[in-house]
């Protein structure tokens, strides 16, 4: 198990005019035994970062250390890192047994009996013992996934790297495998870096989440931190589903004036003091239907999800999404008013997109207190 220190990592592809910077000045520490998820839109540099940790890409600048040992210039095979690829990368000509045993046969001097025993251990842990003598092409996607995991686990590596390992599975299997992966990682306690573009997956799985955009690290934190206290508008809009509603409003003392008749009086105008304009963000789940709210809107579409309804509405030129109770189903074209609590309001700087105010609502409610309160 290892602590991974990434310092000022840069990775550029090509040179001269055609140079593309994939990762820029990236500094991050992944703690020993931690499950860290890299998340971001495609092309944000998350996979490149992972490949630099793996040693499959040479860093253009900066350093990567495992437990204080500089591995920046080490080859992939010397790093003691195991990786699970998006397409599983199983060796098509080998049986499952050979696939899982492959790294052992290459890197250790164990006898083939010892290797076989280890392969069987791993296979029984993953529930694929009966598949050991089959070839990868005979397996389903989920089974292939397990074999790929088995091949990574069997070496007992310092670090696990996973590059969107669940993205080729169907939705149901994906959520089962998600839980299994987490349990596995907890049991093994191996430092894990996991790449995904799916923010739900990131939120559900990671001990901490690293949000990337345009090759730059935006924020690192727990799911709750990146959701409640995003450092900038990008993180706020990337994390959370459906995505946060944002628009620009003018500041007049402690009153925010926005498009389509939006008007809100701040109880605490501290964050917007001295500003003329501000970006306003309200999460769909924080919006409530009110008789006289601050957001007069027209309903455009209602999506019934069973347990809740998604309401798409227009407030002047601004498109809004609200998450409302399933018993409420206003019709398209209806005029509605939305309100929200100031605690749940996000404010971002117009120019820098940095957060001025994030959620301040309570998070640490005691169980006793909660069950006694009237819900």
């Amino acid at each position, binding site marked *: 198990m290892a602590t991974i220190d990434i310092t000022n990592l840069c990775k550029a592809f090509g040179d001269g005019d055609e140079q593309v910077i994939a990762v820029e000045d990236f500094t991050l520490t992944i703690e020993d035994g931690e499950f860290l998820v890299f998340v971001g839109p495609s092309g944000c540099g998350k996979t490149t970062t992972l490949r630099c940790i793996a040693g*499959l890409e040479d860093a253009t600048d900066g350093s990567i250390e495992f437990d204080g040992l500089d591995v920046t210039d080490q080859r992939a095979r010397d790093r003691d890192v195991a990786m699970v*690829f*998006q397409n599983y990368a199983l060796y*098509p*000509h080998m049986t499952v047994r050979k696939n899982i045993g*492959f790294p052992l046969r*290459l890197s250790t001097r164990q006898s083939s009996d010892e290797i076989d025993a280890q392969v069987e251990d791993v296979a029984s842990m993953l529930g694929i013992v009966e598949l050991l003598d089959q070839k990868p092409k005979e397996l389903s996607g989920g089974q292939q996934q397990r074999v790929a995991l088995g*091949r990574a686990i069997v*070496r007992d590596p310092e670090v696990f790297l996973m590059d969107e390992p669940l993205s080729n599975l169907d939705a149901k299997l994906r959520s089962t495998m998600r839980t299994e992966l987490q349990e596995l990682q907890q049991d093994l306690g191996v430092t894990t870096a996991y790449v995904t573009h799916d923010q739900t997956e990131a939120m559900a799985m990671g001990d901490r989440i690293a949000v990337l955009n345009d090759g730059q690290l935006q924020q690192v934190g727990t799911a709750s931190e990146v959701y409640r206290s995003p450092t900038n508008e990008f993180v706020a809009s990337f994390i959370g589903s459906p995505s946060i509603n944002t628009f620009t409003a003018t500041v007049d003392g402690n009153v925010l004036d926005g498009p389509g008749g939006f008007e809100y009086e701040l109880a605490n105008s501290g964050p917007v003091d001295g500003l003329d304009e501000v970006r306003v963000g309200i999460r769909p789940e924080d919006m409530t239907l009110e008789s006289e709210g601050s957001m007069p809107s027209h309903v455009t579409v209602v999506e019934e999800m069973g347990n809740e309804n998604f309401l798409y509405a227009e407030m002047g030129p601004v498109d809004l999404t609200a998450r409302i109770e399933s018993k409420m189903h206003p019709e398209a074209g209806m005029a509605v008013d939305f309100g929200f609590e100031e605690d749940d309001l996000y404010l971002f700087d117009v120019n820098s997109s940095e957060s001025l105010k994030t959620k301040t609502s309570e998070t640490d409610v005691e169980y006793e207190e909660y069950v006694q309160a009237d819900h």
Partner: protein
Amino acid sequence: MRSETRTEALWQFGSYIFLLTIVVLVLIPLYWMLVAATIPQSEFFSWPPRVIPGTQWFANFQALQENVNFVRSIGNSIFISVSYTILSLILCSMAGFAFAKYEFTFKEPLFYFILATLVLPIQILIIPLFLLMVQIGWTNSYLAVILPWAANPLGIFLMRQNMKAIPDSLLESARMDGATEFQLYYKIALPTMLPSLAALSIILFLNQWQAFLYPLVILQDPQMYTIPLALAELVGQQRVYFDQIMVATSLAVTPIFVVFLTMQQYFIKGILSGSVKQ
């Protein structure tokens, strides 16, 4: 609906008749070759032609053997073709792997240069090659026949095209599992390329088996003759030994049949592989 199936059936019947005609046309000379190998030369031009095999095969073979030591030629041909095929497979697959999966300076120009050599006719190369072999002192040796053509440009091209289909992640995964670059080649790339290798081996083997001009120039000692050279010996200025030629050719085509029939499934698979994204 019914008339449609009838037309279809008629079409099918017609195409079978057509194919059958072609098969017969192709087989007649082959059959005649087998028959002619078993009859004395005196009956060769008799009319109507013989269709039933005779009993002269062994006598014809003995005459052939006394005339040109054909057994030795078969041995030469087998040794040269097999070792050439193996060596060439190794070189072509290695070069193909490098061209498909590695980045290096002048990779593209080098590859196109190799491709360009495909258009050079063998006749242009024969004299310089001969002079080179004389200088090295390799004339009349197996090595002189095998080595100059071992890095086959067509083979390199085919292997490169096929190896491109190996997903990068497969090699990267093996790299992370601790494989050296050479292990990537022979533990991952080669086994996944077996059908293509089989197809290429047929092409290489046949090329060498039927090679005539270059071996003719470089091998002067009759003891070193390959089958095509021995066959050519039988066509003399005074006389053509038709009976012996027929025995010799029937023996010469046998390995081609064997190789092709055993490998044809790979041949077809190999030619098609990589043509369609799966």
